[in-house]
């Protein structure tokens, strides 16, 4: 890293197109959501246009970055910048989940007990006779207000006891996701040893496991909605359950998609070398991150 010259990319159209896509995307999303009960609304087309232009821009942007890399324009310094950039991006994702975990801990330890009259703050609530008969528990299956806008669930997603452990989907999901972290690691070892076959095979298995996870999660949601009556409308338990697992599932899809792209790059374009494969590494870090979030979910949403 002596006095090499720096590489500053030439002007680029990608960012402004990306900003424009985001604009379309959020305008489309906002007006679609505001018009959910208006079947005549055309807002969804703005949303679709946003998605299409976002993905197109991303495709060409990444293609350009890969080309520049293959042309040998990246200095070691730029590679380090990518590493730091990805690490800090993952940290920001951790903080996003932290907000939802924080909400979960807060309602479990404070809001729900207080609403049922426990503690310093709860005394006041019961003194004025608010929410009478509401019992604190977790998972909380009722709502303080018995109004019609809530669809109460009959059953929660919590640990069903050893007798039913094997038919409990979250356990299988945990096994699937933890093994996928191992297989992606094996793929990495294969790549580092120059064993392309092993890399492709294990990366393929990882992507397969990601798909299985998403499938199981979908089955779980179906079960929740169709058989347990557990929905976003079931009060705070349903809210925290679906938002935490939902955002996690969304991240699994993104991570799985990234890994699938890496697989395609390796299989069809022969990308990545034993000492030079940042794209894959970044995707695999992301995958490990998604895995760690799941472990937290498993503990705090399902088990405890």
């Amino acid at each position, binding site marked *: 890293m002596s006095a090499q010259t720096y590489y500053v990319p030439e002007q680029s159209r990608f960012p*402004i197109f990306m900003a424009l896509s985001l604009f379309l995307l959020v305008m489309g999303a906002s007006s679609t959501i505001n018009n959910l009960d208006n079947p005549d609304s055309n807002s969804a087309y703005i949303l679709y246009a946003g998605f299409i232009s976002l993905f197109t821009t991303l495709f060409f942007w990444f293609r350009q970055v890969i080309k520049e890399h293959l042309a040998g324009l990246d200095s070691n310094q730029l590679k380090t910048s990518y590493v730091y950039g990805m690490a800090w991006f993952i940290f920001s994702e951790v903080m996003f989940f*932290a*907000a939802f975990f924080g909400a979960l801990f807060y309602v479990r330890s404070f809001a729900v007990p207080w609403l049922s009259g426990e503690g310093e703050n709860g005394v006041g609530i019961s003194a004025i006779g608010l929410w009478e008969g509401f019992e604190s528990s977790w998972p909380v299956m009722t709502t303080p207000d018995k109004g019609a806008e809530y669809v109460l669930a009959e059953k929660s997603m919590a640990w069903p006891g050893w007798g039913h452990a094997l038919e409990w989907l979250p356990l299988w999901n945990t096994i699937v996701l933890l093994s996928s972290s191992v297989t992606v690691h094996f793929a990495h070892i294969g790549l580092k040893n120059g064993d392309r076959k092993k890399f492709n095979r294990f990366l393929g298995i990882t992507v397969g496991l990601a798909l299985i996870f998403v499938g199981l999660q979908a089955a779980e949601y179906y079960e929740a909605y169709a058989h347990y009556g557990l929905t976003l409308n079931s009060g705070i338990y349903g809210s925290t359950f679906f938002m935490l697992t939902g955002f996690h599932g969304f991240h699994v899809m993104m991570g799985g998609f990234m890994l699938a792209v890496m697989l395609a790059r390796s299989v069809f374009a022969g990308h990545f070398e034993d000492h030079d494969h940042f794209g894959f590494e970044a995707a695999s870090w992301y995958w490990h991150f998604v895995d760690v979030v799941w472990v937290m979910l498993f503990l705090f949403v399902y088990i405890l």
Partner: protein
Amino acid sequence: MSAVIENHHDDHHHGPAKGLTRWLYTTNHKDIGTLYLWFSFAMFLIGGAMALVIRAELFQPGMQIVEPEFYNQMITLHGLIMIFGGVMPAFVGLANWLVPMMIGAPDMALPRMNNLSFWILPFAFFILLSSLFMEGGAPNFGWTFYAPLSTTYAPPSVTFFIFSVHIMGASSIMGAINVVVTIMNMRAPGVTLMKMPLFVWSWLITAYLLIAVMPVLAGAVTMMLMDIHFGTSFFNAAGGGDPVLFQHIFWFFGHPEVYIMILPAFGIVSHIIETFSRKQLFGYSSMVWAMLSIAILSFVVWAHHMFTVGLPLAAELFFMWATMLIAVPTGVKVFNWVATMFKGSLTFETPMLFAIAFVVLFTIGGLSGLMLAIVPADFQYHDTYFVVAHFHYVLVPGAIFSIMAAVYYWIPKWSGNMYDERLGKLHFWLSFIGVNVTFFPQHFIGLAGMPRRYPDYALQFADWNMVSSVGAFLFGVSQILFLFIVVKTVMGGKKATDQVWEGARGLEWTVASPAPYHTFTTPPKVD
């Protein structure tokens, strides 16, 4: 592929591209810095105009000019625009211009992402401002958008507000990642961490805060969206949630956010005071440690905004003492600034005037903050004009004065021309008087009990409100002078030397004025 390589060849030595596309497609940190700064100035003018609507309405008791609904939209948009569109982008613009030059880097680490971070902003604020014309009007729940005002009782435009906050947050996070990576990875050999200019340090810490809390804000608005449209109960006690939960999440973001708006100012003021005292800064390493401890503490004080919501006593005590602890590192910084000036050969050019005013007036804001940190006192002061006075003292003669000081201090380096010192001083004195006339009386009416966020007030508050409104118009009009001075400097004027200021230190003063389009193509030698 060959096109890529060719681009590379003729990349370094030619100057900026011609025409509009230069600004749309640019990857140059100086261009992007300029874009940020002008954008922020435009937002200051728009947000400022809204402030003047507020002060015009409050000039006299009784309903004078606007409807109460519109008044609420004005206070909301004023706050959001000044914070997210004015102060934050101004600091990012300064970081873009200065950080690479100060550490001997050719540009920001991730130049294309840098462009993206900027160009998201005009779209985000277009969405926010367009909500004024939507059915039900713009967001009207205050910049803190507490639930249930912002959920159950919000106008439909809240959905647009939520998504515009989302993309603003994305812009901030990407900008912050860029700054961190640049500082961690692009320093010229010899620029060790403890030799970094304080502005760079202040931005390293700020960027870390941004990456930590902007996602939390995204989480908060996402929960709002779900509560409003998809039936969840995060902020609804009837479903087992809690509106107070919103405040916790918001202030977990919000308190570090106020430090995001002041830490870069600390960096700027340190440079300026050092230069015009013609002395080395007193206590460099204690400045760094003070900023680090302020940043860490800022994560454990958030509930000082919530003393009156009915927190358990233990929480009130914890947050009171934790808040007061922040006064210690803050005091260290003020001490160091004063000690730097002590026995220096001071001169009072415009940047120095703004910097000294910063030290004095920011300290007043810090002291009123300490008063607010005392739980039983805050029961009285909370949601009164005293709070408004407090945060305007730290933000206007704090954050904004530091931005103006920075513009005067570095504009010779940016444009190659000296600004008009006489006009600069005039601008300073008008702003200084305007700020104090506007915000000092708000302490009095606050202590006397006038609540914030109402378009009307009881008669006993009339005199000081009138004074405050006069000051606000003085301050607002003075900023037209600022615009004039900046434009005049950019168009021409006395040529600046490379060193510009006699006592200035740092790499940016070693390059030509105006700084060449690409500063360092090979790392400079630093020892």
